[in-house]
């Protein structure tokens, strides 16, 4: 009973740290709101952000609840296989840097739909391209909302998950509709540094008291070791029933990638069936791993809310420099979340038994409270408060960024270009604010539905959709002169929609426990893997379709394709960009 009462109480330190983060974020939004006047300020911060600021801001926007909470939770739950997430989140930027960042910046357009229209002179293509900003965006906001619900349910133990989602969603939506992107650059940059501080300091303190990363990893025995060679001084709590076994957890091809086959084995009736499935287990697992890698690496290069930031660089060289700094800033960050997962497995195995917002996704928040049991109760509370503040920074910054790019898509593309092309800048600004409110409400609604799903898993799904739609579009449009609008549209639509469909199917069957689908997955584990991780077929499919259809419609290659390619690839010193923009301003296009 005493324990129950204590659990209902709210730790003042944790609540204070979280509140301060929210107040600073909102305050900065209001403070900068007065400074952003024009529509250009609102959409891409007047394109005048320095490399250091922009790299911090991109990193701040990118490090979402999935990175801050989800990676640790997933490493704790699935072990080695989950490490691919942080690594590919960080390294995916390399593809962006190598193939897309510089040329895209030189082209001089606000958003990806701008690029799609400008590259193919096709307003129709803009309408198609804009849809995916919303598809990817909504998939990406769901896990942020789960992060918010989980964190609030942790800080206020009695609070229902969906109340947290609604409160946080409302605060951020208000903030975005008041501040716009100018405010966000500053706030995002600040939040990057807050997140790095919040993930590193607690784990350094914690590890110095309860034992280090590699020591806790050593406590898990591999398949070859008969007993775990736990170093002296490393205590470990007994694993609970639902926790994966050591040798499965620490090795590749563990529970994350073999789940589909394991479910099928459980349902298999004859020993022959079981043996056949066992033989397929590892090859399928390898397939899953590769598909996941493709989704994350290509997906990073196709995220609309990240790409829009590259237009805030002064030129293509700055865009490349920014990308390199982003890789360093986020790479440093991503070393740490798995440490929480590893130590959490040793010392907080009870999280394996809980589901939804009480499960492993909250290990980052709760782990520091272990110190209370080691005679440092105050330190534990303060550090837990710090990780909660980091979590707030994580979902607030990413949700804000998504809200800006989705609202821009609605206000700038759908309202400003399709519905009311003659609208004044003031009207568009107003439309932006309303769009933010509409999207905020929809995101909150979706967020309340996904409590059962893993934060990191959901973000991975958004990446897969981006990888099958925007990545092929950008990559091929930048590097292949023969692309036609029809080819680009066909590839992006078919690849993107099929990936979206496959992912929606798996997500729906997991959230609402559809029995007929569950039976189908059990009977066809390979289909389940290919639907859960569609990148391995959807990305090549999109690219092949682009090539085939473009070849078939080769007569419709834009007439000025050479000029467009020069704008994309020629160094700024040649002054081609200006020429292009003036030309189009004359025509009333850009």
């Amino acid at each position: 009973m005493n324990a129950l009462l204590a659990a209902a109480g709210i730790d003042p330190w944790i609540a204070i740290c979280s509140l301060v983060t929210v107040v600073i974020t909102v305050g900065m939004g209001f403070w900068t709101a007065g400074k952003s006047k024009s529509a250009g300020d609102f959409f891409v911060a007047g394109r005048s952000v320095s490399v250091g600021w922009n790299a911090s801001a991109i990193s701040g926007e990118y490090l979402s609840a999935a990175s801050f909470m989800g990676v640790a939770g997933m490493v704790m739950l699935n072990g080695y296989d989950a490490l691919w997430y942080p690594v590919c989140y960080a390294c995916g930027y390399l593809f962006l840097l190598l193939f897309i960042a510089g040329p895209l910046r030189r082209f001089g357009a606000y958003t990806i739909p701008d690029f799609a229209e400008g590259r193919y002179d096709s307003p129709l293509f803009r309408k198609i391209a804009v849809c995916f900003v919303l598809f990817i965006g909504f998939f990406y906001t769901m896990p942020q909302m789960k992060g918010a619900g989980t964190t609030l349910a942790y800080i206020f133990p009695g609070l229902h998950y969906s109340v947290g989602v609604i409160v946080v969603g409302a605060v951020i939506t208000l903030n975005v509709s008041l501040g716009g992107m100018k405010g966000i650059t500053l706030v995002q940059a600040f939040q990057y540094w807050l997140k790095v501080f919040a993930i590193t300091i607690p784990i350094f303190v914690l590890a110095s008291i309860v034992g280090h990363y590699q020591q806790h990893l050593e406590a898990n025995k591999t398949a070859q070791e008969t007993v775990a060679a736990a170093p002296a001084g490393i205590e470990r709590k007994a694993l609970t029933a639902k926790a994966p076994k050591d040798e499965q957890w620490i090795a590749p091809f563990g529970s994350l990638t073999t789940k589909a086959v394991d479910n099928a084995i459980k349902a298999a009736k004859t020993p022959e069936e079981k043996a056949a499935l066992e033989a397929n287990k590892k090859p399928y697992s390898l397939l899953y791993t590769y598909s996941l890698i493709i989704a994350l690496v290509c997906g990073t290069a196709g995220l609309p809310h990240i790409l829009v930031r590259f237009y805030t660089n002064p030129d293509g060289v700055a865009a490349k420099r920014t990308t390199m700094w982003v890789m360093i800033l986020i790479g440093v960050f991503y070393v740490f979340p798995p440490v929480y997962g590893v130590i959490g497995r040793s010392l907080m195995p009870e999280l394996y038994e809980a589901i939804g917002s009480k499960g492993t996704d909250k290990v980052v928040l709760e782990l520091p409270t272990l110190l209370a049991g080691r005679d440092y109760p105050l330190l534990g509370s303060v550090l837990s408060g710090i990780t909660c503040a980091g979590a707030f920074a994580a979902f607030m910054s990413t949700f804000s960024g998504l809200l800006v790019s989705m609202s821009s898509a609605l206000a700038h593309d759908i309202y400003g270009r399709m519905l009311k092309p003659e609208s004044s800048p003031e009207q568009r600004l107003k439309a932006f604010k309303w769009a933010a409110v509409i999207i905020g409400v929809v995101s909150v609604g979706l967020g309340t539905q996904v409590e059962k799903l893993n934060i990191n898993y959901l973000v991975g799904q958004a990446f897969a959709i981006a990888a099958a739609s925007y990545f092929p579009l950008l990559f091929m449009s930048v590097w292949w002169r023969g692309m036609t609008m029809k080819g680009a549209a066909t590839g992006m639509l078919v690849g993107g929609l099929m990936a979206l469909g496959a992912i929606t199917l798996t997500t729906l069957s997991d959230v609402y426990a559809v029995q007929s689908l569950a039976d189908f997955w059990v009977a066809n584990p390979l289909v389940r893997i290919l639907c859960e991780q569609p990148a391995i077929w959807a990305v090549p499919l999109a690219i092949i379709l682009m090539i085939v259809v473009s070849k078939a419609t080769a007569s419709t290659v834009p007439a000025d394709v050479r000029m467009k390619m020069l704008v994309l690839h020629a160094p700024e010193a040649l002054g081609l960009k200006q020429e292009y923009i003036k030309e189009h301003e004359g025509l009333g296009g850009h």
Partner: protein
Amino acid sequence: MSESPSTPDSIHSDAFLARLMRDQLKLSIACALCFVVALVALPLLNYFQPEFMAQRVFGFTLTWLILGVLFFPFVWIISYVFIKRSIALEDAEAKAALDGLTK
């Protein structure tokens, strides 16, 4: 280049564009290959050499150390090399083209 670089239109020629794109794409693909080889090889090593990859190095398993720690600096090195060469390439192209124009 087939055309004389002294004509003001030289930067608008197909040959200039083709060379520009080819040089930059070559550099990008070379860097991407280093990265892709590592990404493809690590799961394959895990698949075919599980014991080797599971040996302990400073308490980590070898594969955990590579993926969880060493992969990040590896990618930084690739991106640093790319940026340096790519900017040098751009400068050289711009200089060559502008020299051609002012002649």
